[in-house]
């Protein structure tokens, strides 16, 4: 799904930050607006609340919790799960030490569920691949959708998000550092240009 299609579909003033005006940081307000945008989109598309949110650890879980809160204000009450995709990463063999497991908690049957995966940043798509594989090992969902706070482009796998908070234009080698309050104590996104590293 193309960006313009999304905009048309949801009739929502999507935040698009283009190259010329691209800031090197996103503030608490930017992040908050991004989360609101996702909640609005989900609320519009799934008003009956017949779905579950699954936050990808770490930070995807915090984004999911914020969306859950906003949906609840709209009267949409859904269950939420947490997914640790560490065991499904495709780069474990290349790491000096394996990431610490935080565990998954999916307090609902995955079979036949409509799952909206939530993550903080969508980049290569490899995390999404891992997350989908992980979910499939819990059962056979009816449908999986993807919601991301930030889509920074440069996909390496054929995934397109269903709900996006912020589109961020970046270079392939830029590093996007997301900090969220519950995990990191502050809401802040910083983009480090490759030549600054």
């Amino acid at each position: 799904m193309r960006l313009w299609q999304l905009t048309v579909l949801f009739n929502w003033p999507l935040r698009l930050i283009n190259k010329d005006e691209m800031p090197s940081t996103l503030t608490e307000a930017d992040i908050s607006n991004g989360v609101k945008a996702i909640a609005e989109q989900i609320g519009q598309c799934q008003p009956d609340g017949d779905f579950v949110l699954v936050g990808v650890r770490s930070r995807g879980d915090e984004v999911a919790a914020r969306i859950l809160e906003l949906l609840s204000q709209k009267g949409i009450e859904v269950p939420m799960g947490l997914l640790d995709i560490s065991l499904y990463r495709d780069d474990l063999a290349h790491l000096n030490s394996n990431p610490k497991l935080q565990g998954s908690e999916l307090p609902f049957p995955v079979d036949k569920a409509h799952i909206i995966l939530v993550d903080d940043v969508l980049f290569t798509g490899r995390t999404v691949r891992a997350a989908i594989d992980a979910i499939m090992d819990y059962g056979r969902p009816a449908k999986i959708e993807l919601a991301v706070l930030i889509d920074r482009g440069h996909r390496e796998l054929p995934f397109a998000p269903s709900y996006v908070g912020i589109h961020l234009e970046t270079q392939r080698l830029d590093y996007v550092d997301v900090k969220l309050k519950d995990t990191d104590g502050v809401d802040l996104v910083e983009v480090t240009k490759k030549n600054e590293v």
Partner: protein
Amino acid sequence: MTRKDLLDIESLRREEIEHLLDQAAPFKELFTRSVKKVPALKGKSVLTLFYEPSTRTLSSFEVAAKRLSADVTTFDVAQSSVAKGETVRDTIATLQAMRTDYIIVRNQMAGIPLAIARATKASVINAGDGAHSHPTQALLDGFTFKEVFPEPAGKKLLIIGDILHSRVARSTSTLMRKLGVEVAWLGPGSLVPKHGPSEIKRFTNYEEAMKWSPDAIYLLRIQMERQSAPFFPSLREYTKLYGITQERFKRIADQGTYIMHPGPVNRGVELCDEVMEYQRCLIDQQVENGIAARMAVLYWLKPNTGENVRPIEEEPN
């Protein structure tokens, strides 16, 4: 925080032990899924090298490795030239040539896993060497103990049986001590080592040991077959003095003391049948936790067999 090999408990730092025990829990959680397998070690090869027969530990490791999607090969020691006098060093050379990623080794001789670890790039896991160490047993025991006592420091563990020949007693005692658990040993004087760590209490009398009020009792398997010179007159006498008989079990059940055992049990020797039905008997839980603990170990170790190893990143953003 990672290591190439897991050879003993002694050399693990407390943080490493806590880390491994914490990591066992998410692995155990996987066992409730319909698909119990995860792809973490896909494409990795695990070789089991058991010089001593052991169905339980070998199976536990195999299940753990397979649930991590590793390919498991059993190096049949009895069928190989090892039995025909090939030295351990020559076997090691063979293993190195096989380019396996993990080697899980059990040997009747203390120090063999270390010798293999020094000579190979593969991660070596000690699955029991002589009377030296059995680190994964200690980890599964620690994990089980923590499930019952989330704050283990200050709790009391009494280990009963043949401490002298037991690598389980050594490793589990060391691990429990590192978690702040108070440890005591009970057994015939001939089977309780004089030279162990001084902070471990020693009892040779059952009643006195029970007055110490242990929170959990760890029974060891009594093995007559291991003894060239007799360490006690008869199994009957052992059971009378140190076994959990029906009468003793009643008191244990009244006090709510937990029971652990590394398996396999000798019913009627170190414990009576009733113990196996006891609600606070953790033996089955230990078996299940063994798989989770061993998965945590396999996931934690990093062999030197990889080529393009780069520093860890939390997630590719």
